[in-house]
């Protein structure tokens, strides 16, 4: 397979998740995850010379995190494109590592949106062409997309609910998942409607959390504590910003990010054993399965039906329980990548996907706006 990308994930860790200790800041969580990720791979804080981070609550991420950690990074990047930011950070870290600008890149995230409330953690931008109509953002934007998908392709609310139920079944296999009780399709449908057709169970969690990832060139990663997880391909794409300006509400820029990632990796969807698909709302994994080439446009609903993406189904999606049932601190992309890395390492216990040599992590930001796709592979695929 392709050798075009020569970097690997050496260490990963979550911070505390769910409801963190009173007074913890987003940067406390970034730092907590950072030392855990360094411990995971056996590197020291003083080895880190590249900082990549973002949080809705921290305007100047790299400055704040570098100060906290006491690092003068050679390379830093605070790209903020919502939940897909961290896949984008990984792409930029790859460029920096390949160019020799830094040797050990840290990607970090932290959010205390449950502790401080979502409205104060990430107040929506005022848009004079949208805000006066009082959309319940971001849910209403995703609901508009879902309405269009249902209209064009006959996608049903039951099929949307399948995504939430599958996530819950996976979450029950993940000891750190927020949700601990089973969920049925009927319960999803009968939950409180937030923005039709989406009920509260079609919407991601609002919890605290964070994570960190340590990335180096593959040759160095091979000398470290954990099996390296190679970055086989990355794609980044921006579609639009506001939902009124999305060209087709049923087609996302994941088509482009996925095309880039697969081309660079020399892989195809059939090679992928496990997917982390950003599930901000139940419609999103359906759109991404289509746009990333796992089924045809419009067939995402039938594709997920019948427990097909649940444990024991035909395709393992969001094995950590996803943003719907495991953890969604507001910008979930880094946690999505961490799960894909752990699946490739084979350390996921009861939820481990057998023979997971290639995993895909897909990030989404804004209102289906930014789309970034990463393919991770084991040593055998590199």
């Amino acid at each position, binding site marked *: 397979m392709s050798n075009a990308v020569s970097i690997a994930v050496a260490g990963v860790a979550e911070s505390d998740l769910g409801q963190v200790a009173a007074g913890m800041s987003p940067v406390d969580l970034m730092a907590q995850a950072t030392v855990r990720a360094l411990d995971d791979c056996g590197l020291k804080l003083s080895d880190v010379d590249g900082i990549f981070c973002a949080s809705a609550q921290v305007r100047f991420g790299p400055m704040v995190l570098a100060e906290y950690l006491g690092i003068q990074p050679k390379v830093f990047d605070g790209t903020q494109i919502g939940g897909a930011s961290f896949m984008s950070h990984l792409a930029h870290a790859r460029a920096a590592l390949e160019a020799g600008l830094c040797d050990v890149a840290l990607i970090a995230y932290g959010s205390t949106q449950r502790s401080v409330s979502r409205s104060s953690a990430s107040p929506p931008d005022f848009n004079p062409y949208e805000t006066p109509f009082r959309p*319940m953002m971001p849910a209403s934007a995703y609901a508009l997309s879902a309405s269009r998908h249902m209209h064009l392709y006959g996608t049903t609310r039951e099929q949307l609910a399948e995504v939430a139920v599958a996530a819950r079944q996976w979450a029950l296999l993940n000891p750190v998942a927020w949700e601990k009780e089973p969920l049925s399709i009927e319960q999803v449908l009968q939950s409180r409607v937030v923005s039709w057709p989406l009920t509260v169970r079609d919407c991601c969690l609002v919890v605290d959390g964070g994570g960190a990832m340590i990335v180096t060139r593959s040759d160095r990663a091979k000398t470290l504590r954990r099996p390296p997880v190679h970055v086989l391909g990355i794609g980044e794409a921006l579609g639009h910003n506001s939902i009124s300006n999305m060209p087709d509400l049923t087609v996302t820029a994941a088509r482009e990010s996925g095309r880039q990632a697969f081309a660079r990796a020399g892989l195809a969807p059939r090679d992928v054993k496990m997917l982390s698909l950003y599930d901000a709302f139940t419609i999103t994994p359906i759109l991404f399965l289509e746009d990333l080439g796992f089924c045809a446009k419009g067939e995402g609903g039938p594709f997920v039906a019948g427990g097909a993406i649940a444990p024991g189904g035909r395709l393992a999606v969001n094995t950590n329980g996803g943003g719907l049932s495991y953890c969604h601190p507001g910008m979930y992309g880094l946690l999505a990548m961490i799960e894909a890395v752990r699946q490739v390492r084979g350390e996921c216990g009861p939820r481990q996907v057998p023979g997971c040599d290639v995993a895909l992590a897909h990030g989404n930001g804004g209102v289906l706006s930014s789309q970034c796709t990463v393919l991770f592979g084991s040593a055998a695929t590199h």
Partner: protein
Amino acid sequence: MKSPLTLYQEHLGRGELAYQVSDGRPVFFPRVAAPGTGSTDLAWKVSKGEGAVYATTVAHYKGEPPLNIALIELDEGFRMMSRVEDIPAESVRIGMRVRLRVLPASEGRAALPVFVPVRP
């Protein structure tokens, strides 16, 4: 110089829904430069105010009646966020023909372009 938003809202104040045209293509939201080309040759036009529902949702705010939010595709070829009034929020259907109704400015809120169903 007046900002694109000011000009847009001045049109709304007269009951008009304005948009821009550059190189024959509709531009909305209004801008100082056309997307894709950067052309500053942007002509203001007034829409006939007729179009169809492109996508629809119903927001449920605590203690309030259900609120429709829709994307409307205007016949001139641009799309905007708005809502459909005069019918229950959940009765709004994709493809439904609608017509502009500009709600006058009130209490610090600018005039608002909403839509109502076209009765056949």
